[in-house]
């Protein structure tokens, strides 16, 4: 297959056009779904004219950003600590393996009770969702570092922090990046879902408001916006990841 990207574009365009046709001809009623072109128009109108748009968007992106930092950094540090203590790792192993089988959102009501209905609850929700992916990736990353690197550190008499910063971190970068990618995805999901369930602001809350008010234009505009943002972040990270892997494994 010579042009997979072109094929993908074609398939996506065909699906969108089919939806457009079905909506315009009334096979899909406007109460269920508005035509894709109308979604884009609604989105543009929202960005240009709605007085809430930038405030809610900023709220959501602040939460997502904080959640990413709070899952990536503690995740890496905890990964280092757990890796250094094999006994602790064995005890925690079942938690790490089954963490993502627990519907984390069931803890959101609990977070609200503890922290209140505010940004902190949302950030903690996103971070809780992402941190374990980062821990697991850090563990895998360190497991895969060739033992000779550790020996070099010992020969050079590097202390723990120097070993972590100058040997472990660079050698583990490709796998850490995979963890970071997951942490980003999970933080986005955690924050938007939390906002959707219960919050005072944010794009997720705006989505649930517009749904409750049968405001399909705003609702589909927001869905398209979230699709685009996630797809852009995702493909950007994927490309970056591919470049890191290429650079690392070329030599």
């Amino acid at each position, binding site marked *: 297959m010579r042009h*997979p990207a072109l094929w*993908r574009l074609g398939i996506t365009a065909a699906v969108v056009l089919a939806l457009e046709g079905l909506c315009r001809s009334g096979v899909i009623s406007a109460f269920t779904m508005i035509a894709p072109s109308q979604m884009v128009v609604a989105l543009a109108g929202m960005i240009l004219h709605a007085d809430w748009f930038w405030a809610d968007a900023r709220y959501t992106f602040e939460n997502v950003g904080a959640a990413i930092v709070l899952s990536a950094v503690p995740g890496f540090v905890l990964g280092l600590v757990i890796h250094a203590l094999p006994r602790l790792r064995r005890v925690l192993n*079942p938690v790490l393996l089954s963490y993502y089988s627990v*519907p984390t959102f069931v803890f959101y009501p*609990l977070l609200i*009770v503890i922290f209140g209905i505010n940004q902190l609850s949302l950030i903690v929700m996103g971070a809780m969702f992402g941190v374990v992916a980062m821990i697991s990736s850090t563990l895998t990353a360190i497991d895969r570092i060739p033992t000779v690197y550790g020996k070099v550190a010992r020969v050079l008499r590097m202390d723990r922090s120097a070993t972590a910063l100058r040997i472990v971190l660079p050698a583990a970068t490709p796998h850490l990046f995979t963890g970071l990618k997951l942490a980003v995805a999970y933080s986005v999901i955690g924050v938007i879902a939390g906002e959707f369930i219960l919050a005072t602001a944010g794009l997720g809350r705006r989505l649930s408001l517009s749904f409750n008010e049968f405001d399909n234009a705003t609702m589909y505009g927001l869905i398209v916006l979230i699709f685009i943002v996630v797809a852009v972040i995702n493909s950007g990270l994927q490309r970056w990841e591919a470049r890191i892997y290429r650079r690392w494994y070329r030599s």
Partner: protein
Amino acid sequence: MKQRWSDYLILVLALTVLWQLAYQLAGPDAITPPLQTVERLGQLVRQEGFWEHARATGLAFACAAVLALVGGLVIGTAIGSSSAAREILSPILETLYSIPKIVLYPVILLIFGLGISAKIAFGAIHGFFPVALFAIGAIRNIRPVLLRTGRVLRLPRLSLARHILVPATLPEIVTGLRIGFSTTLLGTLIGELFASSQGLGFMLVRAMDNHNVPDIMALTLLLFLIATGANSVILAIEHRVHAHGR
């Protein structure tokens, strides 16, 4: 890594102590202590109507799981078997997988209306993508030498599938099924959190609206136990399959 029973014991003890400490810090307005939560769970289970809610969740989950796992396997294998389809379609599936499904929830409700079919659909779209993606990955990762051996031995299609394709892909497919199982449960429960009048998720949301902390804690504990229990069982099967493959 060999797991010992003492590890599980330490884990459960440590979690209980942490929980108790959190209670001491946050107070009874936010958290109920472990013992009281277990007691409350015991009461809930005996309460009238509880099993109807549990059955509603179970039924929706079972339907969603069958749709997600069977659909994911069939479509994943179909896409995986053609290298062109794989190259074109798997990035699309990956992007769809990474979208927060919750934004699709209103759309699902508009299409299916309130009730069990919306829950099933929501659970199924959560579980479908990981199963399909793992099936595609499993087929892509078959070592070419195995297929060449099959051709050299002139195996007929059926025995090629039985002796080479299934054993080579099974470990990864089982991993995909486990993750699909969990995400389907997640989707079904989230589906019940909104716009549902039955199920464990609905009970949780009702407790949340009434600010009934003991019920929130007891239900959270119950869902946690169900999810980790199911996951450990499938994980044990997965370990056996992986060990068998080596």
